[in-house]
């Protein structure tokens, strides 16, 4: 078991290294002078020289890369080109709303899509099943900002149940927080709900055909125990997998949702950074989200091994 954990951890190292390399090369492969690209068309030679200097662009490529990696390993992700503040500090200030948004979306996803998927599989071909399948195709087809505007149109402008935009941190009270985060959370979760309920349904359909389910039925167990104890637990692995790989999708959703609902989180920070060509900030945010993706998927992999002894021996 320990050997398995160590091996999984070690495998994440080259992936992280490659991610860093890709992010690094992104700037250096840009046609022309990267400093010029960052500074924009109207920049003076002095401004370009300053950017050159702060990014260390005059050093050989390999030196640039090792310096950059070395600094990051020591926790120095560089300074913003615009505000001159440490990048990590800026990210730290904006991560709260994003985490809150993602958590609300995740809770909504689990609460809504697991029962939907289970019921759809239980009554395969029935009304709920067809509804889940049609709604999930629809969920994949409507841009998330349109979902956001539809929700705002109905629940904020028309019914006035929620404020149109804005954010309150949890520290200012749970209800004001929930009141403002609910609609963006719902908008963000819809595509995730489409994905997870589809996968839950598919995994449950597979499991429900297994012999042990027939045995459980023959023993006279109640349908609820069979579905949630026996079947859902065994269907958990593909569901967890899709939750992990879908994390990248959620990040894209976060960027757009925060813009629609004016939530001051990481997504807005990265869009502002891109519009201002604040490259150290862009690099750091991409690296951190990619790192989070790797860690989440690593944790999911490890959780398989912990819950399912069959996997460890493969």
């Amino acid at each position: 078991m320990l050997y398995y954990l160590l091996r999984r951890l070690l495998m994440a190292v080259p992936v992280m290294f490659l991610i860093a390399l890709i992010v690094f090369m992104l700037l250096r492969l840009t046609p022309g002078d990267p400093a010029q690209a960052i500074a924009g068309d109207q920049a003076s030679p002095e401004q370009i020289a300053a950017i050159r200097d702060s990014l260390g662009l005059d050093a050989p490529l390999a030196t640039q890369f090792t310096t950059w990696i070395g600094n990051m390993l020591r926790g120095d992700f560089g300074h913003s080109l615009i505000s001159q503040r440490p990048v990590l500090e800026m990210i730290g200030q904006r991560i709260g709303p994003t985490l809150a948004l993602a958590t609300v979306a995740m809770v909504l996803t689990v609460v809504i899509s697991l029962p939907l998927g289970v019921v759809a599989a239980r009554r395969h071909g029935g009304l709920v099943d067809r509804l889940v399948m049609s709604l999930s195709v629809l969920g994949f087809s409507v841009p998330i900002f349109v979902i956001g505007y539809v929700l705002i149109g109905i629940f904020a402008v028309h019914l006035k149940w929620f404020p149109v935009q804005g954010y309150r941190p949890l520290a200012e009270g749970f209800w004001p927080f929930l009141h403002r985060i609910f609609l963006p959370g719902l908008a963000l979760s819809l595509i995730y709900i489409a994905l997870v309920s589809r996968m839950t349904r598919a995994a449950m359909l597979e499991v429900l055909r297994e012999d042990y389910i027939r045995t459980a039925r023959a023993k006279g167990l109640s349908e609820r125990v069979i579905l949630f104890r026996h079947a859902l637990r065994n269907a958990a692995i593909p569901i967890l997998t899709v939750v992990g790989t879908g994390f990248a999708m959620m990040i894209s959703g976060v960027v757009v949702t925060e813009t629609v609902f004016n939530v001051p989180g990481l997504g807005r920070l990265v869009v502002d950074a891109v519009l201002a060509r604040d490259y150290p900030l862009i690099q750091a945010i991409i690296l951190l989200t990619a790192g989070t993706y790797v860690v989440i998927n690593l944790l999911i992999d490890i959780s398989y091994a912990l819950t399912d002894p069959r996997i460890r021996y493969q």
Partner: protein
Amino acid sequence: MTTPLNPALPRRRLAGNLPHWTVILSLAILAAALAMAILAPQLANFEPTRINAAMRLQPASETYWLGTDSFGRDLYSRIIHGARVSLVVGAGVAAGAILIGLPLGLLAGWFRGLDAVLMRLMDGMMAIPGILLAIAIVALTKAGLVTVIIAIMIPEIPQVVRLVRSRVLAARAEPYVEAAQLLGTPAPRLILRHLLPATIAPLIVQATYIYASAILTEAALSFLGVGIGTEIPTWGNIMAEGRLYFAMRPWLVFWPAIVLSLCILSINLLGDALRDRLDPKMKGRAD
């Protein structure tokens, strides 16, 4: 990284020879979108970029079928012209991702030494959220049609490589490939004649999903202000401009949204139908 386990195989009743009504409807919608794109100058009532300050934010009328935007431009004409960019971006991204991903996948599936390196690289790329990579690429280069296509295409490549590789690995275990190997077929011929055909059906299906997701990503990029410049109307930037007036004229956002979503929905439904027909065992999206 994780390898998704095979989700439940589709167990749909065998379709008859007649396509399902959703397929026919999807084809009709896509044909209409294609006609819009090709015949845009004929179908549009106005130049999509003609500004008329006296006619700002007009409601729908006989002259302006869907009303006008904040510059007094005709919304209907802009949506018709917007079809061009969306369809071209979708086609460009799907074609590009397959042109690059297919050879890489074939090589990774065949040359085991290359496989380990290439797949770790793909794992790394997949960990970077596509939209972040795309906005970073657009931000660092001049925002134009080609840049946007490339920026959306790059994050799609790993999916194609993984799909092709898994198909090649499966085909390698087949007796006909072993037989060809024993007969001394040279590697290039073996790959092109015996392994490539096994990847075509799933690739066609994958292409439809890439097409749909590329159109969505283009719209999201335009919406965030890092897409193709506003001088060319796209469904994404029409919505992006319309959102500023959303409270007053929500249909500036909803009309392009409906057209866009109908197209994406049709492509997705068509992709699902193609998958059921061509490749019932395809992994990936569960049904």
